[in-house]
């Protein structure tokens, strides 16, 4: 037996009106819900909205409300399943990469709200005083990687940096979209600003080794015979808030 509150929630989210509520009032709450959902998703998924346009985006938001209604009081945490849902909508078949774009948007949004990360700059001195087999690079939690069969980072940058939206870039994206090479997008945060760049496969492997807690010397050994250059990578990684500290390795491990 539903309570009055359950009947009202059901009436707002579905097309039923089991509580015989005033249809004019119910219509207002239904419109408010869709408007709030569209607003929340457009904040979290700006690239997707630009890609598919307002009308399709609104349709997707309505589907999202039906399939994955919000369960938390904060609209800002709603949307984890939006990418998956977009990939299943027949209306978006002509946007094969939209699902991956949503994953990247969501990663950006998540990182924009994450706790601030600080780098222990003093600890970086260990790189000058200790040998590579006795130190470990600790990574921060202020970066995320999203991989795709599409040139995600290029698409994202094209939509977020108007200076970058040149004919050449569009041609390059189209060409890459036609290929099936996997591209990784690195999401990082510098001075509270979320940014995205392409991350080569070698760098992804490198970060995975560091995340496993591998000693610096072992990780470097794994990267031999690749294009990865540690000396070039380190200052950029510190600048991008990816490295949080250098610690001495547990030599007994």
């Amino acid at each position: 037996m539903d309570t009055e509150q359950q009947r009202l929630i059901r009436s707002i989210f579905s097309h039923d009106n089991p509580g015989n509520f005033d249809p004019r009032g119910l219509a207002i709450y239904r419109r408010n819900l869709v408007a709030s959902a569209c607003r929340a998703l457009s904040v979290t998924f700006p690239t997707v909205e630009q890609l598919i346009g307002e009308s399709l985006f609104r349709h997707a938001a309505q589907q999202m409300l039906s399939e994955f209604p919000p369960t938390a009081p904060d609209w800002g945490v709603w949307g984890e399943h939006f990418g998956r849902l977009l990939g299943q909508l027949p209306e978006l078949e002509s946007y094969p990469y939209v699902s991956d774009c949503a994953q990247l948007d969501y990663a950006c949004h998540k990182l924009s709200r994450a706790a601030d990360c600080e780098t222990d700059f003093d600890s970086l001195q260990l790189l000058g005083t200790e040998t590579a087999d006795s130190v470990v690079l600790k990574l921060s939690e202020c970066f995320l990687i999203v991989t795709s069969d599409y040139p995600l980072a290029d698409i994202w940058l094209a939509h977020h940096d108007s200076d970058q939206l040149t004919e050449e870039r569009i041609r390059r994206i189209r060409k890459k979209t036609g290929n099936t090479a996997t591209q990784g997008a690195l999401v990082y945060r510098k001075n509270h600003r979320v940014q995205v760049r392409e991350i080569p496969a070698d760098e992804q492997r490198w970060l995975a080794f560091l995340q496993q807690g591998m000693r610096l010397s072992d990780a470097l050994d794994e990267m031999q015979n690749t294009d990865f250059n540690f000396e070039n990578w380190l200052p950029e990684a510190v600048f991008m808030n990816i490295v949080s500290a250098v610690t001495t390795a547990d030599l007994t491990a």
Partner: protein
Amino acid sequence: MSEALKVGKEKPRKGTAIGVGLRHAHFRDVLTAPAPLDFVEVHSENFFGKGGAARAFLLEVAQYYPVSLHSTAMGLGSESAIPDSYMPELKRLAEDVEPCLISDHVAFSRAEWLGHIVHSGDLLPVVFDRENLFRMVANIDHVQKVLGRRLLLENLSAYLTLPGSEMSETEFLTALTQETGCGLLVDLNNLYVNAKNQGVENVERYVRRWLESIPAEAVGELHLAGCSPVAAGELMIDDHARPVADEVWWLYAFALERFGPVPTLIEWDNDLPDWQVLTAEAEKARKIAEEVLPYGH
């Protein structure tokens, strides 16, 4: 930040404190364009992220203006419990910002649907009965205990009525204040909208009676807003998309006479105007307050 901006915190004004709702479109303005405001109000949930630009911005604003945290999603009248994650988030935000006021609504916002607790994303009306009174009293007690301070509860604009009320809205609100010691945030536009939507002939008399029916000492804040006109037969929506209506300014003068110099906020959430237009509304409120309640009141 210019010295002129340090009005709210460092140079508190005499008389009624006047503030504006601070929304994303005005984030830059509030820090760069001096405005004679006594406080700003933000929606708590918009700053629940643990870090990032929004949080850093709010902490910067809080250095210059007292901040009121206005929650929209506690759902204190919901049959299901406040989500576990909510209170720690609000408490952490309150500890960081040290708000001048904290408020939410007399509303429910979530219920079970298809086996899950679903959040409506809206402020839904509660039945004014003993069961809901006990539920809200328990929730308010809990929130006030966690926060260690008084909560203000706002009256709703409701677009339908759930059956089964045993008391009037003002009786319900009065009982809440008596049982919990909470305060009231009286939204005059919500009263105006409800009166219009109920087809009340004399709106001013209806609202005056409503205001006279609540304990004056419990009122801790007033909200003023404007809403879009509607065609005959349609329900008026409290969309906070227009300047405050003349009728609501009249009600504001009466409310000040009855409640004294309580903090007053201009809410504008949709079709946002320029910062200067918004702050001019706040100045209008200040002028009325000064006329109704000359300093020394």
